């Protein structure tokens, strides 16, 4: 109790230190006054009495204060605070070092934090809300195929009636519908038919109106819809009076009853909710639509207990299952795990994902070692200060502590900058890149805030950096030779040396920079060759607007699957024909066609076998080309000429004739230039195809749609005709005079007037297809550029500090040599030869693996030119590094030339 009391009082005294300080000063003054009074009373003159009082007191008032402070408060706490303040001041005093260190450390810390956050979101995502951890998903696993069977409507009804260890059990069926507002605007929206219990899983209140309620699920209840904030903002202009308005979803009218806030996207990333109305009578097992079942663990129930209850229910159904000839096993998993089963299950994958963090720790190690070199050089310039403080009685711990505190401030600033960048990068990745690449919003449980765990991780990295940057140089600088240094300090020179460790660090750092720059060359080369190339086409892409077409299916339970399919195709075809006619009647529209893929989009693969002809096989793997199914008028509409043979005709489509058209690249790369007309081609039996495909007769050769250099057989395209309706993923292309993007709204309204269930996705001008690729490409290039700049900054600073330090240390020697008449050039050579040999050593060490990487990592299309590229890259990088080193020498060299013998002599006296 006593020590606790003492601790608390010391703490109070620390917090209110100025008050305690003033009180003690007053007490000391009173004490001295009393002493003085007593001396005066003994007959001493006042002036003398004052000195006598101080002598009697023990002389050093300040020391007494210091000792009292020790007893009164926590001195280390006081000192740490002082050290931190001093550290903050050092940031401003050395802005160059601060900038370099913050950039270098923040890249490593921010990168590590962003990566950890990303992996955690992926592997161990948590649902928001108090009950987030208790929300689960239920799936049937088909034991025969080892995959989930989502057609479990009948099971869902049974689970909901019998399971007691779960509450709020519900199901969701994803649907895509056109949302048509009162002004006639029609756009596809991703919605879900869902049980009302979903709205009670989270305590999220509706932004406007209400969520879905139990009564909405009743068959025959008025049709209602709840909107998400995104949709409300985009389609209703955030109209506060939206509740009560009527919208159409495809063909059916619904009343808006509420708007949910952003962040509520249950079950995944949805923004439109309809009540799920089930008529389970007459349903057989594994009948009905695909659905997801969810629920919440009842209070105090563990997931294992719920699973046991579920298994017990399922075992009663065993006979039923056996009759169907299939075994289904129901399984309960935490909600997100039930959605991301593939990643969650792979322990090895998870371990690999997490171990990538080691890369960032290694990066921090490299950056930290570099910054430590710079800090050591700075510490050397403060040697006199350190030595004098040591002489005045500061312990080594105390000085190391101070340098550590300075490094901690530096690392904390870097961590702050890094975390801000990480947060920004994650937000950019989530909103811009993910949305462009996948065309869908992120899952609702991904949020912008960095988790506490990530913040702690960044804190840990910052601490690690501070130890590297502060403690290591401090230990080196306060080593056992302080006495000898004291002499040097008095002489004005510096006794510290850039020893073996630092030389090693600099050589390693230059080697890493060279290796890195050469890797950038290699990666950039590969990216350029294989990744994004802004496609050039033989037709004016900017005049074509393209859209993916889909149509609502009529899932009436009575009809058989094949009948439903046939009627859907016929309906789709009729709708398409009407759409085509209506579009052609629009002013400015020149032509309308369709295909499964256009240049810039992903094509299908077609493995090639040609009757009576042996095409050259590629170096590795089987021969394959790209393929697309197209409308008969596609080449005429695009304006690309048929070079040989004939174009497709409407009859080819109608009669489903086995014909194909190939492009020029096919003729060159597959046929070796010989005439393909009349040849028969098919897909052979291989690992991808169980049986050989049908034969197709090549009836024509078309000019290449996309133009590029160095095309291979994998760029060749084989076209097949098809009617609309029979191919999924059909893209419509409209040739427009003038601005193709401006035509998009008109296209929507025409489509909506033809059939409200016709849904339009990804309306893009054809030259916008590779937007996602371009963004990814840009992202990689930017990341590479940032890390290159950091590496360059660090090595330049490292070389600079080495040079600068060498000059400072050898001031005396240079002065004497100048005095005895040495040539200045000779002196410069002498001073910098060591530094340049280090740079040379670093370049040599880094370029060996680097050039090998460039030479053997040459992209496919540039095989054979790897060595030439490696030589060129090496020359460039080496020249670059030497000029950086030279540039870093300029300042110190000028200092050398300014040293006069008198300076050196003065330093010596």
């Amino acid at each position: 109790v006593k020590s606790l009391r003492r601790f608390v009082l010391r703490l109070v005294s620390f917090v209110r230190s100025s008050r305690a300080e003033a009180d003690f000063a007053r007490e000391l003054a009173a004490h001295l006054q009393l002493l003085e009074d007593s001396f005066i009373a003994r007959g001493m003159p006042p002036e003398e009495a004052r000195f006598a009082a101080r002598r009697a007191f023990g002389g050093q008032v300040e020391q007494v204060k210091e000792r009292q402070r020790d007893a009164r408060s926590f001195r280390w706490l006081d000192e740490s605070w002082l050290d931190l303040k001093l550290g903050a001041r050092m940031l401003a005093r050395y802005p160059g070092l601060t900038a370099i260190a913050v950039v270098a450390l923040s890249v490593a810390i921010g990168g590590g934090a962003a990566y950890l956050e990303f992996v955690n979101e992926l592997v161990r995502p948590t649902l928001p809300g108090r009950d987030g951890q208790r929300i689960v998903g239920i799936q049937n696993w088909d034991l025969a195929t080892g995959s989930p069977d989502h057609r479990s409507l009948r099971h869902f009804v049974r689970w909901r009636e019998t399971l007691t260890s779960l509450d709020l059990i519900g199901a969701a069926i994803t649907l895509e519908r056109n949302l048509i507002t009162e002004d006639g605007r029609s756009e596809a929206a991703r919605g879900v038919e869902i049980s009302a219990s979903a709205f009670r899983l989270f305590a999220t209140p509706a932004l406007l109106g209400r969520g879905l309620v139990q009564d909405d699920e009743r068959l025959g209840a008025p049709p209602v819809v709840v909107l998400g904030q995104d949709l409300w903002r985009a389609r209703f202009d955030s109209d506060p009076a939206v509740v009560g308005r009527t919208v159409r979803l495809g063909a059916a009218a619904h009343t808006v009853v509420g708007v949910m806030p952003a962040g509520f996207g249950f079950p995944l990333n949805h923004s439109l909710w309809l009540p799920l109305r089930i008529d389970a009578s007459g349903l057989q097992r594994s009948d009905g639509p695909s659905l997801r079942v969810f629920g919440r663990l009842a209070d105090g129930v563990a997931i294992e207990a719920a699973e046991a209850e579920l298994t017990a229910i399922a075992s009663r159904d065993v006979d039923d299952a056996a009759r169907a000839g299939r075994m289904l096993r129901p399984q309960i998993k935490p909600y997100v795990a039930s959605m991301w089963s593939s990643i969650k299950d792979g322990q090895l994958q998870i371990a690999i994902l997490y171990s990538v963090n080691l890369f960032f720790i290694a990066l921090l190690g490299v950056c930290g070692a570099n910054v430590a070199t710079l800090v050591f050089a700075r510490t050397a310039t403060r040697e006199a200060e350190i030595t004098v403080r040591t002489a005045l009685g500061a312990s080594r711990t105390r000085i190391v502590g101070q340098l550590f505190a300075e490094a901690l401030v530096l690392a904390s600033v870097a961590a702050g900058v890094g975390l801000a960048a990480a947060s920004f990068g994650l937000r950019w990745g989530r909103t811009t890149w993910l949305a462009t690449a996948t065309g869908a919003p992120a899952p609702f449980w991904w949020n912008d805030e960095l988790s506490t765990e990530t913040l702690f991780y960044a804190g840990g990295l910052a601490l690690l950096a501070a130890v590297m940057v502060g403690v290591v140089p401090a230990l080196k600088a306060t080593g056992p030779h302080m006495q000898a240094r004291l002499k040097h300090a008095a002489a004005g020179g510096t006794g510290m040396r850039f020893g073996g460790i630092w030389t090693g660090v600099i050589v390693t750092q230059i080697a890493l920079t060279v290796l890195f720059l050469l890797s950038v060359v290699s990666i950039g080369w590969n990216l350029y060759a294989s990744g994004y190339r802004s496609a050039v086409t033989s037709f004016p892409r900017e005049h074509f607007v393209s859209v993916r077409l889909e149509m609502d299916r009529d899932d009436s339970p009575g009809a058989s699957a094949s009948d439903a399919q046939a009627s859907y195709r016929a309906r789709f075809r009729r709708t398409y024909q009407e759409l085509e006619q209506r579009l052609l009647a629009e002013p400015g529209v020149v032509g309308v066609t369709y295909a499964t893929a256009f240049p810039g989009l992903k094509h299908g693969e077609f493995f090639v076998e040609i009757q009576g002809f042996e095409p050259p096989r590629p170096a590795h793997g089987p021969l394959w080309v790209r393929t697309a199914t197209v409308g008969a008028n596609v080449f005429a509409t695009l304006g690309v000429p048929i070079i040989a043979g004939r174009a497709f005709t409407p009859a080819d489509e109608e009669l489903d004739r086995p014909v194909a058209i190939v492009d020029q690249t096919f003729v060159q790369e597959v046929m070796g230039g010989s005439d393909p007309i009349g040849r028969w081609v098919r897909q052979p039996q291989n690992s991808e195809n169980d049986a050989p495909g049908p034969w197709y007769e090549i009836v024509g050769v078309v000019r290449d749609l996309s133009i590029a250099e160095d095309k291979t057989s994998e760029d060749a395209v084989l076209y097949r005709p098809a009617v609309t309706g029979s191919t999924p993923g059909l893209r419509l292309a409209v040739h427009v005079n003038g601005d193709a993007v401006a035509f998009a709204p008109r296209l929507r309204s025409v489509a909506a007037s033809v059939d409200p269930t016709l849904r339009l996705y990804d309306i893009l001008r054809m030259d916008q297809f590779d937007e996602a690729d371009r963004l990814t490409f840009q992202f990689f290039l930017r990341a590479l550029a940032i890390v290159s700049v950091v590496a360059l900054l660090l090595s330049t600073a490292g070389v600079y500090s080495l040079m600068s330090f060498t000059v400072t240390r050898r001031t005396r020697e240079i002065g004497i040599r100048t005095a005895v008449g040495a040539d200045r050039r000779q002196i410069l050579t002498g001073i910098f030869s060591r530094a340049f040999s280090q740079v040379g050593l670093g370049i040599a060490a880094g370029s060996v693996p680097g050039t090998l990487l460039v030479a053997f990592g040459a992209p496919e299309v540039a095989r054979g030119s790897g060595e030439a590229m490696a030589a060129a890259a090496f020359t460039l990088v080496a020249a670059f590094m030497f000029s950086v080193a030279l540039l870093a020498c300029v300042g110190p060299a000028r200092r050398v030339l300014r040293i006069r013998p008198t300076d050196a002599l003065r330093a010596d006296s």
Partner: protein
Amino acid sequence: MSSGENHIELLQGTLDLIVLRALSTMGPLHAYALATRLAQVSDHPLSLNQGTLYPALIRLEHQGWIKGSWQKTENNREAKFYSITRSGERELGRQTEKWRRLAGLVDKLLLES
């Protein structure tokens, strides 16, 4: 160091005991009076720098054994007077007992040899 043969090094921890004893006998004292008192009773052999009293005073105050308050001296000067608390009295008893036992033990050992 140079105060001659009469110099006695104060044993670690004995300053607390001496201060408590002085306050218990003399009543409230300020630091100067306390230092003077210590010099008087020891006939000056304790070459106590008056400043060294303060860490001991703050330590005793933190432990709740003494209490300081600002008052006027007889010459109408302001000074901080320290008085012993009830728990300080108890502590004085304990420490005195401890000291006696230690001193007796040392005495005994010295006599034997």
